[in-house]
């Protein structure tokens, strides 16, 4: 596939963001290749009652 792109101008007046987290990207500009991976784990087992952290997965 052939793709032709014409960038006639890039002007940003104002951007407001709270947070960019866990392998995320905020980009004003150009990019050829972007690969993002994120593992996030907060299972019900993450809640333990008492001062013991589980030792086995």
């Amino acid at each position: 596939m052939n793709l032709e792109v014409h960038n006639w101008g890039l002007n940003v007046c104002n951007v407001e963001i709270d947070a960019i987290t866990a392998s995320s990207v905020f980009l004003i500009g150009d990019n050829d290749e972007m690969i993002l991976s994120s593992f996030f784990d907060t299972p019900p087992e993450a809640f333990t009652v008492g001062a013991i952290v589980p030792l086995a997965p």
Partner: protein
Amino acid sequence: MEKRTACVKNVEGASVAFSSILAIGDTEFSRPISRVIAVQKEGAVFTPKDDVPFTNYDLFTRPAKWLNKSSNVKQRIYHHEPSIHVQQAQFIGVDTSSIFQIGSIHKLSAEARIKHFRILREEDVSPAQST
């Protein structure tokens, strides 16, 4: 990739943390990696007993499913203006392998692995004991 000049007037941010990047300009290759174990504990008193080793969880070792490279797109980009203009950009946080950039990134691959724990107090502790 043809480069453009980044003209930036104002950037405001509170925090850039844990393998994160704030960049104005061009990058050839970027590969931020972060592994996080976050322990929140009721009472917030931490002892060595609360340490959690990364080796106990396969979340940190299992391979990520990267996409196969199979694009056969032939791309031609024409910049008719030599610069990028940004008046104002604001953020509160850039965290855990994240990127805030004004400019170009040729290649980028970011990876974040985060595991959370919550430790609550025993429920049958009387209010007098818990103080």
